[in-house]
């Protein structure tokens, strides 16, 4: 028999026409992903977040490091109308003659000049037999027999009958109470209160410097100017929250996405190899995994900081990514290995092997795609976890350097002021939640798209 004895079968043309062009696995997956509305929306959200981080600062030009100590922890909706005044006057103590009479509390307490958010000056008439006065500040109207509020200051002489409060004054109603104190420092029973509502003031010089007015001769004290708007409020040091969230997005998104991506890849590789080959390979790799899980993270983080030679004020981000990648993969590796152990027992794997599939083909084509479900779940959970790890490390000086913000660090700051000024926690937490939600939904979409078994169903 020669070769010619066999004639190749004519390739059948147009015998059976499939209704759609044949698609590769990846093309098909992509099409299914695009068809998934939720996943696509999530994808756009993620793109938006990235734009927010990198293009945002070009649009919203507020400086994320600039501090405004006169408007700290300001809510977005706070009144921004400031009254112009000439230069601040020097504060002078009011001293009166030794009083006579029998009264126990000052007859009256009054505000000197205007009550400002920068300072509130008080004066009162002297009380005989007093050793001094104690001044309280309250946010509710004080009642006799109840505490008078925050002891904001003391004077040590009954003839000194004035006090200037500059302690973190906000635009809201305060009640100042003045009580005379005796030699032992105990308050007299009676007190006198005054209700004060400090307003926002700005000196002409300051307004000029900040560019609210251009010509000092065109304005008069008493005019109002509208101060800068902070759409998401300000933080503890009066910095613009929106600008900080944008800057913080750069840190949090890059760390929160890059580190998990890298360690998940390592985890997949080690996990699938261990699960697939089993035996001694599995044993060795899994014992190594146990070893890595048990290493004290913080200690190794410090080690990497030293290795990278990070100097004072230098960013610890590279060291942090390395530490995260090198120490965080075991969780994924264990999960993937567990999945692979199950998958390799499936019939189709055996079939593929009998058809001559190489090990790398089996791992790459059958094992890894089928572990995508758990891998994507791990990834979406690793994102916020990494963001918070970064915040914790930055907190103890091993991450981003101040004043560079990050979402996690802003959250940590916000937690402390949660009750008083919730916006400082709300906004960064919201951004993290949105990011996590987007990755979750996208992850779900991806999983569905990559899952070959779902092909027939949807």
């Amino acid at each position, binding site marked *: 028999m020669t070769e010619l004895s066999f004639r190749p079968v004519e390739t059948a043309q147009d015998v059976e026409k499939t209704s759609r062009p044949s698609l590769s696995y990846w093309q098909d997956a992509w099409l299914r992903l695009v068809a998934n509305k939720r996943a696509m929306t999530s994808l756009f959200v993620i793109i938006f977040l990235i734009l927010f981080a990198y293009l945002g600062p070009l649009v919203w030009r507020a400086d994320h*490091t*600039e*501090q405004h*100590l*006169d408007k*700290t922890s300001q809510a977005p909706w706070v009144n921004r109308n400031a009254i112009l005044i000439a230069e601040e006057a020097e504060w002078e103590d009011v001293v009166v003659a030794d009083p006579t009479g029998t009264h126990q509390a000052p007859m009256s307490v009054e505000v000197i000049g205007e009550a400002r958010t920068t300072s509130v000056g008080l004066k009162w008439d002297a009380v005989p037999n007093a050793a001094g006065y104690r001044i309280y500040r*309250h*946010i*509710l109207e004080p009642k006799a027999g*109840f*505490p008078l*509020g*925050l*002891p*904001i*200051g003391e004077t040590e002489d009954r003839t000194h009958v004035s006090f200037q409060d*500059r*302690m*973190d004054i906000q635009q809201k109603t305060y009640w100042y109470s003045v009580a005379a104190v005796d030699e032992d420092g105990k308050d007299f029973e009676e007190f006198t209160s005054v209700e004060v509502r400090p307003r926002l003031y700005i000196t002409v010089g300051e307004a000029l410097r900040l560019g609210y007015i251009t010509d000092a001769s065109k304005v008069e004290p008493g005019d109002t100017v509208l101060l800068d708007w902070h759409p998401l409020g300000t933080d*503890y*040091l009066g910095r613009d929250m929106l600008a900080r969230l944008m800057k913080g997005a750069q840190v949090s998104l890059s760390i929160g996405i890059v580190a998990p991506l890298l360690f998940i890849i390592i985890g997949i590789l080690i996990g699938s190899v261990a699960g697939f080959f089993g035996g001694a390979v599995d044993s060795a790799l899994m014992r190594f995994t146990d070893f890595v899980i048990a290493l004290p993270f913080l200690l190794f983080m*410090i080690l990497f900081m030293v290795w990278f030679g990070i100097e*004072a*004020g*230098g960013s610890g981000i590279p060291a942090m990514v390395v530490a995260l990648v090198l120490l965080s993969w075991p969780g994924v590796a264990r999960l993937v290995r567990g999945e692979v152990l199950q998958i390799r027992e499936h019939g189709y794997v055996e079939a593929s092997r009998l058809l001559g599939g190489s090990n790398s083909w089996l791992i790459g084509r059958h094992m890894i795609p089928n572990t995508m479900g758990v891998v994507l779940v791990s990834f979406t959970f690793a994102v916020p976890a990494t963001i918070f790890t970064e915040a914790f490390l930055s*907190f*103890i*000086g091993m991450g981003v*350097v*101040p*004043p560079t913000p990050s979402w996690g660090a802003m959250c*940590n*700051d916000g937690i*402390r*002021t*949660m*009750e*008083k000024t919730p916006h400082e926690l709300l906004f960064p937490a919201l951004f993290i939640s949105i990011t996590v939600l987007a990755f979750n939904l996208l992850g779900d979409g991806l999983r569905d798209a990559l899952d070959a078994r779902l092909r027939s169903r949807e």
Partner: protein
Amino acid sequence: MTDTLHTSKPPLTASPGWQLTKFAFYALLLCVALLLLLGFLTEKFNVGATSTSAVNFEKNTITLSLTSEPPQMDSTRATDMVSGMLLGHIMEGLIRYGPDNEILPGVAESWDMGELAGTFYLRKDAFWSNGTPVTAHDFVFSWQTALNPATASQYAFVLYPIKNGKAINIGEAELDSFGAKAVDDYTLSIELEQPTPYFIKLLAFFTYLPINKEFYESREGNYGTNAEDMIYNGPFHMTRWVHDKDVRLEKNEYYWNNSETRLDAIEFGYITPDPNTALNLFATGKIVLAGLNAENIERALTEGWRIETHSDGSVFYLGFNHREERPTSNLNLRKAIQQVCDPEELVYKVLKTPGNIPGKSIFPVWLRGVNGFFRDEYPGPDHKRNVASAQEYLQKALDELGLDEPPSLVFLTGDSAFSAKHAEYYQSMLKEKLGIEIKIDKQIFKQRLAKMTSGEYDIVAAGWGPDYDDVLTFGDLFTSWNANNRGLYHNEELDRQVEIAQQSSDPKTRMDAMDRVQHILYEDAAIIFEYERGSVYVFDDRVKGVTRRSVGTDPDYTRAYIEEEVDS
């Protein structure tokens, strides 16, 4: 998951939903059972308080919380404030501080103190909580133990004023050459190394507390680790110490002056560093005192709680690195930074809590001077922010340093939430006013200390708390021989003034010298005075007679009592 194969509706009990409900039911059952079991076990093995009220009238007990677990109660080794506070209640030294910080006789009934030697006559009715008398030997033993190199006590230096104290500690002299000797059981003679005018005040410090030798040795190295590993001679004795959980002190019936102790017990029922937790405990009526911070003051105001302030005695400052290779060794650069700093702005806008006092001197306001308060007699340098003058200084500094633009400086600080804000405040302020770039170096505790010691910084946020009630506890901080002078500041005039104050026993001479010190520090811009730390706290005003102190046992509940309920 929809199932299209089954067209007929399956019975409810066969649906997955039903299966899940069953699962949920069993899961819940399991959780509750486990909870009850663990709860039962915990309660069974639990020692200590579980639920207490802040003030218990029937039991004449008050409850408080601690911010941290005391590392140990061995007075020769204690270093921290929590241990110091507890030791102040359960032990008594030769003297103790009274409600107005006056010196009261403690175990010593009376004493003759000369310039270089003194004799202390111990009371015969002072007993340990196991009934044995407190003798002069107990003091000598305790002090020798602290000085013994094998003990490795960090606070041994407090005993150096006693003759041969230092020599013993560094292993150059034998224990029996020690300057403190028990003449008999109730007479203690002390020789000093050199005149130490404040020596009597030192005796209230915890390293000077007595320890019973026989008992100490019977514990074989475990002294001070548990309530039963100690005996007590103070107004209270410790009856329980569950690590990291709670400490209970009860009135010590063996205490010689127990008629002055009015509480039957003090329960430190909680150990938590979280200020919000402490406030929540206060809110639910579990503890009588809780610290406030800038963020939760409003809550305290809304609730109508009594708020008080207290100065804790420590002084905070920015320390410069005076090593030659550092730009901060340049006087004009330091002056420039000093001139733009505004302690008032820092206190009012950054710290935001009353109780803190803008800093004007290394000496806090509560220190005593010649007759009255030191700072009333010697107000200290006048400081006001002056940006124009600062810029002049900066220009001079740049000329001297041969720089075109301001150098960037490393600002070393700690890892607390506040230290970050504090550093960022200076970073922004110095950049805006002087164009100086600040690199913030946040470090965890031990590494910050290591960097301070090795000099890897330009500016450091630092503070100093008093060890004893005398100007020198702050005054000698920047002498060239003080190991705490980690910035290596050196000024011969200052050293000389401190020597004068150390050697003289005339108050006026000493205070004059200290006045020079505070001016030198300012003129030389050796450090920048920031603030004297204060705290704001809520307090249950049914408890009276509590003493707050800037130095010594704080808060001091030894004479506290519960006010009778007026109504009911």
